[in-house]
C-alpha cells in the first residue's frame, strides 16, 4: 500500500470501503456454492441477512436513525407475498393467487407506505424517540399477525405451490442462493449509488450535524424519510425471499424483537458508516452463530451481546472502522 492511497486531506473518514472491496467480497460469495454445495442453507440465510443488514444501514448507518423495528418491514414483505400467493387466503379483490414476484412488489409498496407515514410522524422528534417508536410499531404488527385468523395466527403460514420464475423452481436451493446473491448485489449497488449521490452527502451531513446540515439548505426530515423508504422497500424484498427460503414461518420467526435487534447489530458490529461493514458483520455473526449454536445451543445470541459491547466500547466505527484505522496507520508509517 502506498501513502498516496490514504486520504490525508479529510481529517475524519466518514465512509470506509471502496468498489474494489465490494468486488472481492462478491467474487468470494460467487464461488461459495461451487465449493460448499452441501451447506447451501447456511449460505442462503447468511446472504439474506447480509442484504437485510445493508438495507437497514441505509437508514441506520447513512441517516443515523437506529431502528429496532425492521422485523415489521421484513414481516410485511414475507406475509404479503405469501398471503397473496395462497389460493384460500388471497382477498377476492385479486381474483385468484398472485405470482410471488408481483406479491413481492406489492409487499414492498406496503412497506414503503408504512415507512412514509411512520417516518413523517416520528422524524420531527430527535433523540431516542424514533428508536422507541420502532419497537412499538413492530410489536403492534406482531400482535396483529398473532391474533388474526387471516395471517394464520401464531401457527403461521405454509408456502403454497409457487409458479416458476422465468422457468426456475423457486424451491430449488441453488435458485434461492442466486436470488439471495442478487439481493446482496442490489443492496450493495444501492448503497454505492447513494454514496455518490446528493442524497448520500446530504445524509452524511445530517448524521454528523443536523443543525449544520439545515443551515446548508438540506431538509433533514425529508432526507431521513427518503432513506427510510428505500430501506423499507429493500427489507420487504428480503422478507419475501426469506419466506420462500423458510417455506413455512410463524410470527415468532419473523416478527420478534430479537430479529430486529439481530439485523441492526450485524450492521453496527460490521461498521455502520462504511459500505461493506454490514455485509462483513452479517457474514461474521452468521458464522459465529453457527459455530456457537453447537456449543451454546439456543443461547447463541450471547456472542452478539459480547461483541456489541466490545464494539461499542473499543471500536465505535465497527470492524470496518478498525480496518480503516489500521490502514491509515500503515499508510502513515511508510
Amino acid at each position, binding site marked *: 500500500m502506498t501513502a498516496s492511497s490514504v486520504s490525508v486531506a479529510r481529517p475524519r473518514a466518514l465512509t470506509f470501503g471502496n468498489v474494489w472491496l465490494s468486488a472481492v467480497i462478491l467474487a468470494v460469495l460467487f464461488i461459495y456454492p461451487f465449493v460448499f454445495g452441501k451447506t447451501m442453507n447456511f449460505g442462503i440465510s447468511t446472504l439474506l441477512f447480509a442484504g437485510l443488514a445493508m438495507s437497514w444501514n441505509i437508514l441506520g448507518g447513512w441517516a443515523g436513525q*437506529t431502528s429496532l423495528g425492521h422485523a415489521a418491514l421484513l414481516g410485511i414483505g414475507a406475509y404479503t407475498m405469501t398471503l397473496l400467493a395462497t389460493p384460500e387466503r388471497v382477498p377476492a379483490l385479486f381474483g385468484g393467487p398472485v405470482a410471488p414476484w408481483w406479491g413481492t412488489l406489492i409487499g414492498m409498496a406496503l412497506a414503503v407506505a408504512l415507512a412514509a407515514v411512520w417516518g413523517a*410522524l*416520528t422524524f420531527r*422528534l430527535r*433523540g*431516542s*424517540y424514533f*428508536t*422507541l*417508536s420502532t*419497537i*412499538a*410499531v413492530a*410489536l*403492534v404488527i406482531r*400482535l*396483529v399477525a*398473532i*391474533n388474526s385468523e387471516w395471517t394464520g395466527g401464531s401457527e403461521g403460514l405454509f408456502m403454497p405451490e409457487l409458479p416458476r420464475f422465468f422457468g426456475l423452481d423457486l424451491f430449488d436451493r441453488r435458485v434461492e442462493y442466486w436470488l439471495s446473491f442478487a439481493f446482496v448485489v442490489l443492496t450493495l449497488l444501492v448503497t454505492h449509488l447513494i454514496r455518490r449521490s446528493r442524497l448520500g452527502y446530504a445524509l452524511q451531513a445530517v448524521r454528523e450535524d443536523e443543525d449544520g446540515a439545515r443551515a446548508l439548505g438540506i431538509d433533514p426530515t425529508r432526507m431521513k424519510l427518503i432513506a427510510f423508504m428505500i430501506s423499507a422497500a429493500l427489507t420487504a424484498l428480503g422478507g419475501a425471499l426469506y419466506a420462500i427460503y423458510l417455506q413455512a414461518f410463524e410470527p415468532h420467526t419473523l416478527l420478534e*424483537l*430479537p430479529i430486529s*435487534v439481530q439485523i441492526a*447489530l450485524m450492521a*453496527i458490529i460490521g461498521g455502520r458508516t462504511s459500505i461493506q461493514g454490514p455485509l462483513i458483520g452479517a457474514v461474521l455473526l452468521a458464522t459465529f452463530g453457527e459455530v456457537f449454536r453447537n456449543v*451454546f445451543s*439456543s*443461547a*447463541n*445470541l*450471547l456472542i*452478539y*451481546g*459480547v*461483541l*456489541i*459491547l466490545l*464494539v*461499542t*466500547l473499543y471500536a*465505535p466505527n465497527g470492524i470496518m472502522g478498525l480496518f480503516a484505522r489500521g490502514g491509515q496507520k500503515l499508510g502513515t508509517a511508510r
Partner: protein
Amino acid sequence: MDQVAVTAFFQTLVQGLLTGGLYALIGTGLSLIFGVMKVINFAHGDFLAIGMFITLALFRTLNIDPYLSLLVAAPVGFALGYAIQRFVLTRLGDRLGEGSMLATLGLGLIISNTLLLGFGAQPQSINVPYAIKTFSFAGVQVSIPLLVAGLGTLVVIAGLNLLLYRTELGRAIRATAQNPLGAELQGVRTANIQAIVFGMGVAFAAIAGVLLMPLLYAFPTVGENYTTKAFIVTVLGGLGNLPGAVVGGLVLGVIESLGAFYVSNNYRDAYGLIAFLLVLLLRPEGLFGKTVKRV
C-alpha cells in the same frame, strides 16, 4: 348497570391498579436512570429477570420464601448496576447517547442468554401456598401476592422520595441530574452519584422481579416484555419525570386491564403500545406538564 357488572368493573380496576403499581416500580427505575444520565437502559427488563431467577434459585436450593429473596436481589441488583455504570457506561465518554443504547442492548443479550444457559428455556414457577390466595373486599376479589406487590411498590417509591428530598445524597442526585458540571464544581462526586443512581434503578427492577415471582412464570427472555412496559410507562409519564412514571404505570395497568376485560384479552399488550405511540406522536413530553421535569 346491575350489581354484577359494577363488581366486575371494580374487580378489573383494582387488578389494573395493582399491576400498574408494579409497572410504576419498573418505570421509576428506568426514569430515574434517564433523568440523571440521559441513558435509555435497554437491559431494564433483563434486570427484572435476574430478580426473578435469584428468587427461583434461592427457593429451589434453600427453600427460602420468595419475599425474603428481596434481601439478596436488591443488593445484588444495586451492585450490578453500580458496576455497569462505573466500568462500562462511563467509558463511552461523549458517545453516551447512542453508545449507552447499544451497550445496554448488548448487556441485556448477555444476561438473558446467560440465564438461558443456566436455567434452560422452560418457563418455571414456584409453589407457595399464598400464591393463589385471595381476599374479598366488598365483593371484589384481590390476589394476595398482587396486593403485596402493590404495597411493596408503594414502600419503595415512598422511600425513594424521602431519599431524594430529605437526605444529602438526594440533594447530590438532584444536583447531578440538573447540571452535572455545576454539581461537580460544588464538590459532588458525580461519577459516584451516577453509579449509585444506576444501581438504584437496577435494584428497583430486581425488586419488581422478586415481587412478580409468586405471580408469574420465570423464563430467560421474560425481561423483553418488561423492558417494553418500562418504556411505555416512562414515555407516558414523560422521560425522566418520576411522579409521571408512577402515574404512567398506573395508567398502563388500568388500560391493559380494562382493555383485556371489555375488548379482547388477545390484544392485552397492544393497548399500552397504542397509548405509547399516541403519546409519543402527540405529546412527546409525556401526559403531564409542558416541560420535562427532572427528578
